[in-house]
């Protein structure tokens, strides 16, 4: 969601980092660019002004001018201020006191409250082991309550039955009574969307707030919101006490300026971000990581955690063993592809890697996406068990059969086979080193299978040393520093090392 902003800031800072020394006017002109970039990213104007002042005050200070790499120093300052504005630390929900704890969701029409209610219910049920009940107070939008009921069924949590003609306040009371009787831990109240100018609806919100005494009152806001984000956040927090923000649709290509503004305006942390249309598409928000993404520093911590979450420990140990023996066959490759997919596909991983924004664009431009990976999977699935273990068996007629079976061309099959062999060789070499590099190389292998030759100029389907160097360059040349010794958990590394 931050790609565009990242690009812009990246260009600004490239200019700065090349300089040996910085004058005040250097800083000023760079900050002018930053201002523009932030405004185009829909960051609220007051927040932008505040940001620029803070960065300037610190950047012009002696500290920077005396430092050996002033450009780097300025980037660090920008990063620090970004984190300050985004808030620090992950914000847990406070729902552990006397049950039922009430979570109230409010927001504009179409911001995603109902979907978020379903996601939150699933999150609390599966990750926090809570007994959750959903109740819809939206008596206005057609089928809003039915929508919540269906989501509740999907998440397998209880949903307050609907009674026609009841007022939102009465539904809230009934929900609280029902939650008490059923020994519910957390009651999620989904309210109707309202514009902040609608006095009647805003007083309804106030009434529900004061009678339900929520432990958490979360403002659900669209990541694509423009300058109005500030108005909305302010208007809601003037009337009811907002305790946090959930930012939806952050899987879009919006630049995420709203994220920057929300915290600054409400003083409340962003607690979750919605990252897909699916019920499990809700993730905690980490300000440090978001700042990292904005500055194109990647989000390695998220990647590592995601890897740890999806790749089972034994699987990984097994894989490492096989890698170091150099016995990396089609079955292993298939497993790797599966893991890649589980981690949100190539796009998901790429967006978390540092400095990879450009590469990602290239891939998109060349029409290379997760479909190519699925194709590889299909090719392997079309092989017999023997063939998967011993690719040596693959003669021309077998390859032809596989290509028919998987709906691909023989040359695609050939490419995959070559890739697997190259990978096996590489794995043997790298097996002992472990860690992210092997991960990268396998990624690289997948990347180069792109059918578009303009991305993959050479025929070699494996990422060779040159390509690795290229990626390193894209990453600012210090990939090894950043990853040194840090293995991916589940891929041989011991444990994730937090970046700070």
């Amino acid at each position, binding site marked *: 969601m931050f790609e565009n902003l990242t690009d812009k800031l990246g260009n600004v800072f490239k200019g700065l980092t090349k300089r040996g020394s910085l004058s005040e006017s250097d800083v000023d002109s760079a900050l002018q660019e930053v201002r*523009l970039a932030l*405004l*185009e*990213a*829909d960051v*609220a*104007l007051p927040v932008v002004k505040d940001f620029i002042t803070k960065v300037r005050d610190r950047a012009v200070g002696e500290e920077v001018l005396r430092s050996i790499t002033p450009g780097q120093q300025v980037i660090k300052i920008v990063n620090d201020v970004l984190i300050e504005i985004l808030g620090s630390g992950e914000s847990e929900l406070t729902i552990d006191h006397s049950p039922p704890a009430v979570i109230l969701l409010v927001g*504009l*029409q*179409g*911001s*995603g409250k109902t*979907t978020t209610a*379903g996601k939150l219910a699933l999150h609390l049920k599966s990750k926090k082991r809570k007994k959750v009940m959903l109740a819809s107070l939206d008596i*206005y*939008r*057609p*089928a*809003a309550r*039915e*929508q919540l*009921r*269906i*989501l509740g069924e*999907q998440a397998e949590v209880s949903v307050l039955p609907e009674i026609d003609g009841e007022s939102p306040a009465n539904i809230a009371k009934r929900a609280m009574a029902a939650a008490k009787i059923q020994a519910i831990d957390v009651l999620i109240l989904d309210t109707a969307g309202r*514009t*902040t*100018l*609608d006095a009647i609806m805003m007083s309804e919100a106030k009434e529900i707030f004061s009678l339900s005494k929520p432990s958490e009152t979360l403002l659900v806001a*669209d990541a*694509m*919101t*423009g*300058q*109005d*984000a500030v*108005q*909305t956040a302010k*208007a809601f927090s003037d009337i009811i006490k907002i305790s946090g923000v959930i930012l*939806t*649709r952050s*899987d*879009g*290509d*919006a*630049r995420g*300026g*709203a994220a920057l503004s929300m915290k600054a305006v409400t003083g409340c942390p962003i607690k979750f971000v919605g990252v897909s*249309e699916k019920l499990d598409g809700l993730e905690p928000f980490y300000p440090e990581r978001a700042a990292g993404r904005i500055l194109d520093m990647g989000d390695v911590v998220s990647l590592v955690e995601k890897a740890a979450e999806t790749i089972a420990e034994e699987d990984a140990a097994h894989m490492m063993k096989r890698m170091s023996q150099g016995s990396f066959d089609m079955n292993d490759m298939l497993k790797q592809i599966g893991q890649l997919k589980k981690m949100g596909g190539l796009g998901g991983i790429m967006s978390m890697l540092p400095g990879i924004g450009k590469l990602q664009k290239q891939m998109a431009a060349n029409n290379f*996406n997760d479909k190519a990976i699925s194709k590889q999977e299909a090719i392997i699935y079309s092989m017999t068990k023997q063939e998967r273990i011993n690719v040596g068996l693959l003669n021309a007629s077998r390859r032809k059969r596989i290509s028919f079976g998987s709906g691909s061309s023989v040359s695609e099959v050939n490419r995959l086979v070559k890739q697997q062999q190259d990978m096996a060789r590489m794995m043997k070499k790298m097996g002992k080193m472990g860690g992210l590099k092997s991960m990268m190389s396998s990624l690289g292998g997948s990347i180069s299978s792109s059918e578009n030759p303009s991305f993959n100029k050479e025929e070699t389907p494996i990422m060779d040393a040159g390509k690795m160097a290229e990626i390193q360059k894209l990453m600012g040349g210090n990939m090894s520093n950043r990853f040194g010794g840090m293995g991916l958990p589940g891929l041989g590394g011991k444990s994730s090392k937090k970046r700070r």
Partner: protein
Amino acid sequence: MALNWFKKLKNGLSKSASKVDNAISSITGKKTVDKEELDNIEDHLILADLGVEVASRITKRIKEQKFELNEKKEITKLDISETLASEIEKILLPCESNIFDKFKSKPHVILLAGVNGSGKTTTAGKIAEKFRLDNKTVVLAAADTFRAAAVAQLKTWADRTGAKIVSGLDGGDSAAVAYKAVEKAKNENIDIVIIDTAGRLQNKKDLMEELTKTCRVVSKLDPDAPHQKIVVLDGTVGQNAHSQLKIFNDSIGLTGMIITKLDGSAKGGVVVSLAEKFKIPIHAVGVGEGLDDLQDFKAVSFSRALAGLDEL
């Protein structure tokens, strides 16, 4: 009706308008305008979501105007506001376009697309009501087979407007639903088909492909269908609207847009830069949740409301 529209819009835009007002009032009574004050106006146009580029151009115009007038007399607040309104109007006027203008074919097929939560289903209901008032028969196609209860939501609107509805199974093929609806309209001599598609983020390639597929499938029944492909845009959206419009336009070739939720504090100022860049007709604005809260887009009214002026 027109007055009603302006009132609602003015009320909706009041927050942003008053901001523009404030910025302007700092100028009035002076004979020269310095850079700081111009910056101030520009900032406030940015706050109204007009975007940096358009904001700075309009500011420049105001600066020029200022110098012209400077010879004769002091600048008044009204001068500035009028300049602002006319600059915005110049951009918007070519895009003003009534959705209900000309229908050549029967059935006339309208497809609504947009990101999640932009208000497609509500807009579909409101359009159906417009046609009902015009004594046209309507069939609604519930092509959102993904979101929970989307069909039930559209069904309610069908009941309210007396429109027929075609729906499929949850998770089913949305293109098939659209096809069935057009087929039904053909067989039963229905005038209008409104296809309500599922919300999709423009950067999800697969989902955008699903949309092109829907258009393709419908065109099998009538090569010109869907006759209108309208994007429904949330009025609270910021500069991301550009990305939305571009990608939706690239995928299905938009014939127009409808801006929703302008009854809130959102400014919808992004419409100005969208109009300038994409030259896509703007049909209507949504100003409430009621059946009749879809109003024809009027460039003059919109511009004047945005500049904090009363209607002419």
